[in-house]
């Protein structure tokens, strides 16, 4: 994701992660590309810090003491409408990722992401776009797999358009937005629109698979 839109100002960021080492590492890797306003290590401190600092972007760990990432989103997202959340986690478990995105995160990246890629992702989220890692794209394709026997309640929300599916496939294959645009003969802006639409479907759809992921699979 080296094709981020240049922004006039550096985005302000709050880091929420329960590992100090990790926060320090992220801070160092991001360098001067972002303006780190503060760090928090559990749900309560995260909520109060986000509400008082009102950053452009919150880098949010999926697993936190005192409740998880989705809990932070539920408690403060409505208080800071201009703040966007980007989930950052080592968890590969689909239900964690989907739950955080459905709670309102604008994207999901794994902790193996490099510093410059993460800075690009933050820029993108700050600009109002969605950020899909290959893994999240894979989950989406899995969840919206077109098996014919799944009843579709809402045609608009429960299905990916062929174009959206193609975009997701390329992202799952490790393509950057720019590479996706080149491959599909689209503009980067159009790719971003497709990704944002997919994010909206992921957050709002009531498809069985999503409901299952968000709740039942946690019990396994």
């Amino acid at each position, binding site marked *: 994701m080296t094709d981020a839109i240049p922004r006039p100002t550096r985005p302000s960021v709050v880091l929420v992660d329960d590992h100090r080492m990790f926060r320090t590492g992220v801070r160092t890797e991001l360098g001067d590309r972002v303006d780190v306003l503060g760090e928090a290590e559990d749900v309560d401190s995260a909520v109060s810090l986000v509400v008082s600092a009102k950053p452009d972007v919150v880098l949010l760990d999926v697993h936190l003491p005192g409740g998880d990432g989705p809990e932070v989103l539920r408690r403060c997202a409505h208080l800071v409408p201009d703040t966007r959340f980007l989930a950052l986690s080592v968890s*590969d478990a689909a239900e964690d990722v989907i739950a955080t995105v459905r709670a309102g995160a604008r994207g999901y990246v794994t902790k193996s992401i490099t510093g410059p890629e993460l800075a690009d992702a933050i820029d993108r989220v700050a600009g109002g776009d969605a950020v899909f890692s290959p893994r999240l794209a894979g989950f989406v394709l899995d969840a919206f797999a077109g098996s014919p026997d799944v009843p579709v309640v809402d045609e608009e929300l429960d299905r990916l358009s062929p174009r959206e599916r193609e975009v997701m496939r390329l992202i799952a*294959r490790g393509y950057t937005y720019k590479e996706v645009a080149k491959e599909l003969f689209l503009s980067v802006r159009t790719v971003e629109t497709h990704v944002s639409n997919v994010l909206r479907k992921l957050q709002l759809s009531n498809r069985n698979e999503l409901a299952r992921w968000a709740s039942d699979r946690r019990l396994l």
Partner: protein
Amino acid sequence: MGGGSGISPRRARVASCDDAEVNDVAPLHRSSDGRIVAGVAAGMAEHLRVGVWWVRGAFVLLTAMGGAGLLAYGALWVLVPLDPPGRSAIAAHPPAAGRSEHAVVPLSRERTVALLLGAAGVLIGVLLLAAQSGLDVSGTWPLVVVGLGAALVWLQADEDQRDRLRVGMGRVAPEDRAGALQVAVGTVLVVLGLLVFVIGRSGLADAGQLLVAVVVVGLGVALLGGPFALRLLRERDDERRARIRSEERAELAAQVHDSVLQTLALIQRNAQDPAAVGQLARAQERDLRRWLYAPVPSAGQSLRGALEDVVAEVEDRHGVTVELVCVGDSPLDDRTTSLVQATREALTNAGKHAAGSAVAVYVEVEPTEVAVYVRDRGAGFDPGAVPPDRMGIKESIVGRMERVGGRATVDSELGAGTRVELRMERSRD
């Protein structure tokens, strides 16, 4: 047959567990194997090396002769411990399944016989005693009922003790419902017996007042003893919870020790070699991740599992990071195994020529087709000037795919990495 000779504590202590095996003389204990009421007779029979029914007969006989047998039995029940230390039933019968079959199942059938027997003994003894002292026999009937009820409750309490031992050893949980029923029946018997006794003695009018007094006293006892009993219960729960927690902790500790600590030790030893450290950390991460998030290993059974193994192998051998994204899954057969092998070649290729950069693998299982994309951002090559050694690798990807009716395209550009696409129709089954 009096209780005295048997319960000599010195003798019981002298015969330690090893001696018991060697001399074949069991110290006096109550046996939980093959017992009927509290295991007194069974334990004594084992101790005296006589048939158990002789002992039981003696107890009944003594009971009939003025109630001495009953007294002796009660005293032994209270004084003699259940199963001697070190020679517990568990030690004597190592296979747990065999034991429960052997001891528990016949016990419940025998117990009904035992209760009838015991009740008969109690009745005969008490009635004879009463008749001898010239009392009105009919007035003592309620007391018999009380005794029966108390015996039921006590039996269950004794059982609980044993069950707790069993649960502590990780055995099956006690049959709570049957136990509760036993306690309930016993309680009802005691209460009814006492009521009838009181009414019979003092008439209905006085009984009312007496009943009020009893209820008031009972309430007082409950008020005083309630918190204490509650605390005991809570402590027991806490203890159980602590035990479960410590077991989980032990499992976690074992896992952390076997994997994470070993890896950390290796990393310290290889601190001079960044590549080795990275490889160790990556392998450990994968290991831990699998343990944490995928408790059921699917490797060897499915396409996804096989690909995970291949990815792990390539990461270890070439020190690259491979990100695997799978959509859908399919069973592993000859054709999909070929696909996995072709993927491995492509990954090995990427690992050799794209060292230090990330490799992405995307697998999509569609209703009619399986597709694998391998992509690296390494040096790439010019397809028009393929060196001879690359030909072989390409052959082992393309050729292999074509042999199973699939196809492979390898696309590379100098400085822009390589893309390999493998496609195959799914076998019909």
